[in-house]
């Protein structure tokens, strides 16, 4: 089961001219503005005037990897609690207002960031900013709202993880991959630690991390930079810094010396599968060009039905029902690349794994073809053009980059850097990063004895 993967960090403009090797006269991407308010709040404006709609997002540079050990799940729990109201706007008023005007809202938490967003028609921007600025520092929590919300989060853990054998395996694999870094903890938290989280925990975390100088405001849609600047200064600009935020230095990984394996057995598993995570650099920790190379490598190996893994294992050898690979590059610290396969019936997980290894070896030894390289780059760069059609996607790309150590410029120039990747670099990346000592292999099975001994 493929790790949920996003094609993070991509860009939107200045790229059309060179797309696919032909020239484009017709269009360029949005003219993105980027500035910082006096209180330290960073602002990105992504104009898209096609529809009178806006996407308003606030991203905080805090996620599950910033939690104190023993309090796993706190970043995500706090995300839920941000909907519980402030002194000025009691519980439910923000959500009711957004609903009444026909808006959409939600929030999300990753290991590195926590974000809140609304989508509404354009004339409501100021009001959204007032509400969001208010809950940046004005949260009020009482046990009568916090306790039921903790139950909600436990049900969320049931739904996403406990009820799902594949998700349980992924959790175990991440914990095994990271020997020292907090990325090994589940974002939603370990259940026994979630159960003990309190209002006090949440408020202490809030005061440590929720401050304008630790946040990024992204406004995409039918707006101008001038307009956003004026409104942001009148709303967010009035929020005083709560605290200075310490640099995000997390415990780093030691040298990995031993491949790990993890087996999860559940009677509900009908289709055994195997997957492997490799520890690899992220866009932030990589040397220049390295992440882009891994992005291209993962694409050639495992995205779509002309990928190496699919062609070799599903089409040619017929040993797998499915096979894929992917890379989640936007992270503050070292991240993962995955490869995965579901064997056909009659093929063991060991045979499946050997077949995957065979394909990885081929790429490491023989490299990739010019056509594979070209196709992968074309597709990745096209992602950035297609993203121009979706203000929400653009807002997410910039938000994720700016909260994981990236910059607006890095997002902008991403297609150029993808274009510069060479076949030789891809082969070298395969040699370097497909190192089993830096990996964990996970088996999803029905019964433990069904995993055969590897020789």
């Amino acid at each position, binding site marked *: 089961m493929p790790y*949920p993967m996003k094609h*993070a960090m991509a860009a939107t403009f200045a790229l059309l001219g060179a797309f696919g090797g*032909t020239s484009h006269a017709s*269009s360029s991407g949005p003219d993105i503005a980027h500035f910082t308010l006096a209180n330290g709040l960073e602002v990105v404006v992504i104009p*898209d005037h*096609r*529809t*009178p*709609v806006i996407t308003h997002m606030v991203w905080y540079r805090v*996620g599950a990897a910033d939690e104190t050990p023993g309090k796993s799940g706190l970043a995500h729990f706090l995300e*839920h609690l941000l909907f519980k109201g402030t002194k000025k706007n009691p519980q*439910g008023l923000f*959500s*009711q207002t957004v*609903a*009444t*005007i*026909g*808006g*959409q*809202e*939600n929030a*999300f938490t990753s290991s*590195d960031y926590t974000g809140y967003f609304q*989508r*509404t*028609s*354009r004339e409501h921007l100021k009001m959204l900013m007032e509400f969001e600025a208010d809950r940046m520092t004005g949260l009020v929590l009482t046990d009568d709202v916090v*306790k*039921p919300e*903790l*139950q*909600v989060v436990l*049900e969320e853990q*049931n*739904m*996403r993880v*406990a*009820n799902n054998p594949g998700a349980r395996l992924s959790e175990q694999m991440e914990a095994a991959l990271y020997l020292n870094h907090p*990325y090994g903890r589940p*974002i*939603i938290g370990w259940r026994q630690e979630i159960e003990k989280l309190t209002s006090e925990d949440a408020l202490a975390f809030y005061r440590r991390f929720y401050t304008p100088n630790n946040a990024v405001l992204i406004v995409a849609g039918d707006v101008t930079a001038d307009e956003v600047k004026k409104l942001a200064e009148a709303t967010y600009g009035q929020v005083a810094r709560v605290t200075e935020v310490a640099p995000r230095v997390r415990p780093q990984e030691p040298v990995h010396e031993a491949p790990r394996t993890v087996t999860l057995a559940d009677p*509900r598993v*009908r289709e055994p599968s195997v997957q492997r995570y490799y520890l690899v650099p992220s866009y932030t920790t990589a040397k220049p060009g390295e992440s882009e190379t891994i992005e291209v490598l993962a694409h050639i190996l495992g995205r*779509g039905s*002309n990928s190496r893994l699919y*062609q070799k294992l*599903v*089409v040619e050898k017929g040993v797998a029902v499915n096979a894929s690979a992917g890379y*989640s590059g936007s*992270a503050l610290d070292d*991240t993962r690349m995955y490869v995965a396969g*579901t064997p056909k019936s009659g093929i063991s997980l060991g045979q499946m794994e050997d077949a995957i290894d065979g394909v990885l070896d081929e790429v490491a030894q023989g490299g990739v073809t010019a056509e594979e390289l*070209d*196709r992968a780059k*074309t597709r990745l760069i096209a992602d950035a*053009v*297609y993203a121009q*059609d979706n203000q929400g996607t653009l807002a997410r790309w910039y938000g*994720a980059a700016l909260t994981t150590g990236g910059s607006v410029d890095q997002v902008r120039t991403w297609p150029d850097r993808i274009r510069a990747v060479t076949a030789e670099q891809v082969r070298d990346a395969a040699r370097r990063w497909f190192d089993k000592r830096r990996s964990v292999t996970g088996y999803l099975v029905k019964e433990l004895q069904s995993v055969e001994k590897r020789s």
Partner: protein
Amino acid sequence: MIVHWQRALGVALRCGALALILAALAPQPAAATTKIERFITPAGIEVWLVRDPAVPLIALNFAFRGGSAQDPAEKAGTANMMASLLDEGAGELDATAFHERIERKAIELSLTTGRETIRGTLRTLKENQDEAFDLLRLALNAPRFDASAVERIRAQIISRLQRQSTNPNEIASRTWWGTAFPGHPYGRPMNGTVESVASITADDMRSYLKRVLTRDTLKIGIVGDIDAATAGRLVDRAFATLPAQSTLAPLAEALRNVTPQGIGRLILVDLDVPQAVVTFGGLGIKRSDPDFMSAYLMSHVLGGGSFTSRLYREIREKRGLAYGVSSNLIWLDHSAVTLGGTATRSDATKETIELIEAEFARMAKEGPTQEELDKAKTYLKGSFALGLDTSTKIANQLVSMQLDNLGIDYIERRSALIDAVTLADTKRVAKRLLGDGLLVAVVGKPQGVTPR
């Protein structure tokens, strides 16, 4: 690290046909970008087009009537398998060559099977539009159904069915539909069963294709940097050579215009999972019913997709019993249902079901309040534009409006339709739809829940 823990379940509101008014919302001239042009191509195909020169891409959405309801009774899953194979080799191109052509130009083509439609989307950069429509033509007119591709896709579908066979959400859904529509195409699983999929042949799929993928039921929406003349030429290139007339299998008289069965029952399926999954539903309303808009507003108050519905408040916010809970209207050609879902721990399942049933009963008895109705109206009007902010979404709306026979002026009329609904309308329709109660399917090991 990219796993996102969304605060709310992404239970999609089925509001495909409920495009709200853009013009009314937005006095800005920007709104003019959604002007719909309707024209007939030289080959006689109707096209709805929205021109949008801002981004150099073309989004096409299209639909044929048919869907899984047209599967032969003993071969459930035919439409789904057929649709999965259209891009697995066509014309001179085998599967690998076809995918290579698609990927080399970063073209996106996908087909999805619904109960009564087969819908497709094509997205391409403008500069590759000819290649994209050529490949679409091949896929629709000359799919190969090579044995190797058929067996490969069959194995993938069966693999998925095997996985779903122990997935509580899937079991709950199948149980609900199977109980509500016994002996009816709606009661059959859209993707089939392991046995039925094993029996589907290339000829079955060719026959389905010839019967269903025809010009008479075709609906088309295009959005992008393209004019009507070019759009007409490209549409004809892809669709003009399809058969003119469909031969849809008629539904037996007894299966037409049916209401869901089993209202009042509770079906329990034992599965060893910590969290019980609950699917619940009852009567719905046809899209063509004069009371549709009243029902839609009432349903939004009860269980609609925002954080403010009655179900959300009672189940999640006040008591923390579930992460997500919602209910929506689903309308079909020959029936209509209200369908909802939630998931909760074993020792809270009984209470949760009782609360849901109480909210349905309260709505049936009292209807919404004036304040709730007013808010639902502003929600429905205001959320329109959000469904139209990408080319793909607009193209999808253009086709949904045609499938639901709403008329090209629907967008202009819609606000008035919403405003015309009175509190009495919503009370009347609540009693009519919800008064009989619910059919509930529960999967898990809930404590104290007894089948009835």
